[in-house]
């Protein structure tokens, strides 16, 4: 009974993903990069749920479940690392965190 084609959802997800990518590549602030990454994860989740609906299978939703858990873990560890880096370097500007410069 819905008249929204599944491809619209998928396009939306793609758009969100693209925006997130641009953010991840462009921002200098580490936190902002993280935010963009969360955005990308959300876009992926949206795609999964859309396909779950389309194929009438729970699997997609389950995967989203796991993705969310992992995203949480990742956010926690990542932010902890940021704190550690900040203590050492007083900055989160990724341009200046270039010890591995060759």
């Amino acid at each position, binding site marked *: 009974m*819905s008249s929204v084609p599944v*491809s619209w959802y998928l*396009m939306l997800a793609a758009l969100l993903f*693209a925006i997130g990518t641009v953010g991840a590549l462009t921002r*200098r602030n580490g*936190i902002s990069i993280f935010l963009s990454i969360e955005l990308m994860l959300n876009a992926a989740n*949206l795609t999964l749920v859309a396909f779950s609906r389309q194929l009438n299978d*729970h699997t997609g939703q389950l995967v989203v479940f796991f993705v969310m858990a992992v*995203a949480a873990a990742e*956010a926690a560890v990542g932010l902890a690392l940021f704190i550690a880096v900040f203590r050492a370097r007083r900055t989160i500007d990724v341009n200046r965190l270039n010890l591995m410069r060759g």
Partner: protein
Amino acid sequence: METLIFLIFAALAVASSLVVVIHRSPVYATMSLVVTLFSVAVLFVLLGAPFLGALQILIYAGAIVVLFLFVIMLLNLQKEGESAGRRRGQIWVAIPGALIFIGMVGLVFWRAGAPDLQPLTPELVSLKGLATALFSDYLLPFEIVGLLLLVAVIGATVAARRAPDAAEGTGLPPREDFVAEDTARKEARS
């Protein structure tokens, strides 16, 4: 009706995500992310996954974003400045790249056509079905994710603690010196 809801919240999601990516202040960006997350939650519900929508709000908007805000406040991050010198060119590559990406996806759909959504079934929507699948077929991944969370907690704790002795073993210059260097560099640039 559904279409309308979809369009509203889709637009909201896109708009707020743009704000996340563009706005200079981290706090405002985080707030904007919350709006995006809410919109996506609504879309989840539209797609027949109300449980996930609730989870999205609980975990993402509730826990993760709060974590972000904590860290932002803790580190007292300021507004971000302009990218200097060589790094400016990054944006000119990123945006066309993103456009190409969207174009590719669009191309796929243009070729494949735009099938309608299947009708909702009660099994899909019900929590019972989800839980059953989770605890039967996907029991192992479930347990592993639990382990993963444990590991993440431990890791985060260890990573963020203060070093036992502040000046030992990092190989980097002590904080105070680096602050001076930091200031000197800023002055040299200006």
